[in-house]
């Protein structure tokens, strides 16, 4: 499932089949249905249904509902809407009646990532058309307002206005601060400039949906100039990765505390494990800008490692991650 390709997700629990030999007639609504979202770190209850009553956990209140219950008491299926990356994981439905119980597990991988993109020319230099091209050159498409909202709900914040597909210009703010208030002052949310003239220039929010190959990190003792980095990747039968590919690799868990060249001549590094010496303890794809006001890319003769991309998947016999 992806933020892009579907508005909602249907999760079915299968046919509930609980037999209780001691009780010949089971009141149809006496089954207790429970859905939870299970990751290695924690279990979050989504909802519990019993005797026609349903209790939904607050954070799922507006985006989950039971498909057939209680009209069909044995239908434990749910619909989850407004998908976001943090919805990835296993969904467990438990059905209980008396001392009997049974459960099923559905694996869900929500794909795709929204990222802010500022080209080499500097801040607010992209017309709508050029913004679309910039995303395309980085293995992505321009993000929709819904995708930016889903990313915002997952914690994404950025104080730079960027184009979206509906030709509006917006930016997501969780902690309003000076120069990022807009007219809403301290209220967190996505600020919008409304629909803009297509020739005005801004940054852009792109959406990369799916990793098709593999991004890997390449280093040498002397590091590489931009030109040498291109050569280094081709020696591995690969090419420099795009910014979108690096974001997808980051989402897949890549963590490298050394900055590397990318195909658009930007220099970035993916951090999944917070460390003070690696991007100040912050998580995300960190960007090395030429200027302190976060504009411009490093000069081509400066020396960094590099991130390469190959369409070839690593042989993966032990991967047990289920991708839906």
């Amino acid at each position, binding site marked *: 499932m992806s933020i892009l390709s579907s508005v909602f997700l249907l999760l079915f629990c299968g046919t509930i089949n609980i037999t209780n030999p001691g009780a010949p007639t089971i009141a*149809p609504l006496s089954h207790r249905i429970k859905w939870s979202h299970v990751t290695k770190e924690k279990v979050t209850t989504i909802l519990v249904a019993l005797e026609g009553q349903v209790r939904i956990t607050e954070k799922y209140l507006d985006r989950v509902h039971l498909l057939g219950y209680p009209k069909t008491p044995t239908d434990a299926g749910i619909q989850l809407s407004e998908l976001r990356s943090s919805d990835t994981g296993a969904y467990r439905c438990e059905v209980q009646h008396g001392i009997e119980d049974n459960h099923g597990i559905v694996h869900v991988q929500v794909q795709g990532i929204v990222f802010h993109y500022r080209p080499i020319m500097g801040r607010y230099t992209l017309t709508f058309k050029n913004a679309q091209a910039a995303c395309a050159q980085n293995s992505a498409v321009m993000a929709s307002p819904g995708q930016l909202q889903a990313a915002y709900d997952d914690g994404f914040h950025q104080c730079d206005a960027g184009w979206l597909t509906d030709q509006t210009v917006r930016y997501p703010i969780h902690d309003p601060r000076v120069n990022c208030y807009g007219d809403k002052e301290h209220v967190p949310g996505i600020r919008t400039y409304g629909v803009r003239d297509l020739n005005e220039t801004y940054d852009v929010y792109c959406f990369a949906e799916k990793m098709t190959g593999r991004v890997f990190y390449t280093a040498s003792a002397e590091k590489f100039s931009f030109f040498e980095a291109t050569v280094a990747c081709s020696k591995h039968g690969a090419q420099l990765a795009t910014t979108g590919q690096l974001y997808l690799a980051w989402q897949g868990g890549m963590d490298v505390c050394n900055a590397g060249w990318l195909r658009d001549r930007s220099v970035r590094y993916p951090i999944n494990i917070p460390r003070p010496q690696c991007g100040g303890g912050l998580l995300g794809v960190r960007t090395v800008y030429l200027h302190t006001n976060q504009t411009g890319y490093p000069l081509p003769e400066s020396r960094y490692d590099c991130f390469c991309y190959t369409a070839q998947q690593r042989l993966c016999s032990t991967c047990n991650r289920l991708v839906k």
Partner: protein
Amino acid sequence: MIPVLICVLISLSVAENDLDILYPELEHSRTIYVVENGPQLSVVAEQLKVVSRRGGNATLPCKIQRDPSLPPNRKMRIKWTKLTSNYLKEVDVFVAMDFHKRSYGSFHGRVHLQGSSPMDASLVITEITLEDYGRYKCEVIDGLEDEAVVVSLNLEGIVFPYFPRLGRYNLNYYDAERACRDQDAIVASFDQLYEAWKDGLDWCNAGWLNDGSVQYPITTPREPCGGKDTVPGIRSYGTRDKDKNHYDVFCFTSHFKGRFYYLVQPSKLTYNEAVSACQKDGAQIAKVGQMYAAWKLLAYDRCDAGWLADGSVRYPISQPRRRCSPTEAAVRFSGFPDKKHKLYGVYCYKEHE
């Protein structure tokens, strides 16, 4: 496990008309959503860790706390499960609701609720086995609410590194499981190895642990064991391929009920003579795990090298002295000699009558 269907609708098994009769007040088009008004149920354990031993008993504490102003719920349901290294998999242990009770699998007949009060969900496990070691979840369901607490059951015992006659690094994960079982032990957990490391275990051969990882404990860092200028610790190779990768294993064993002893014989024995000497004594040739358990838990000490069931020759020293492991208390290992060599004594193990 319910077969999981995605995007397939389930046919109705109850006709709508039946429901109208059963629940005339129920409006089909709407679900009744219940607003949370604070938890009225909680489940606590006064200890999160309980220590017992093989053959012993243990009570895993679990206490239900419920709003006393609520009417009692006869349909409150208590379920105990055992967690596994796979976070999606739990093993059923025991369930109770009203007068219905059921225990599952290897726990059948060995578990019951302590039941000191209706709010006491503590579980008593008797005749504890090595496999019972682990984490248990006590889950209480009360209407729409449910709560759970996890309690660990630890066992007194000893971790020992093991490789068979085949030599070093010859066991895949499944061989390793069998090897430990053959020595009256099970594959150790990381926590058990960690405790052993804290007690001073230093072993420079990597071995399987029960979570499928391969690790080894180092208390004195040195060059071939992860580097000389490193900190002491448990070195990890991470999770390895259970079929294709071959290592040694760390086994864990606990108290036994029988008697472990050195069989005094007029002369030294070959392996086959050792096996039959124990049989003649109404016993069996002892296993490696039994020697370790006797040494660690009973301070067994004998300065005679003797055959064990796997064809190895060892002797247990708990009081180091000249010529008998002078520097440390240890189970000394003399290798896997030719089984025809008539050079050693024998250790036997007799089950209690």
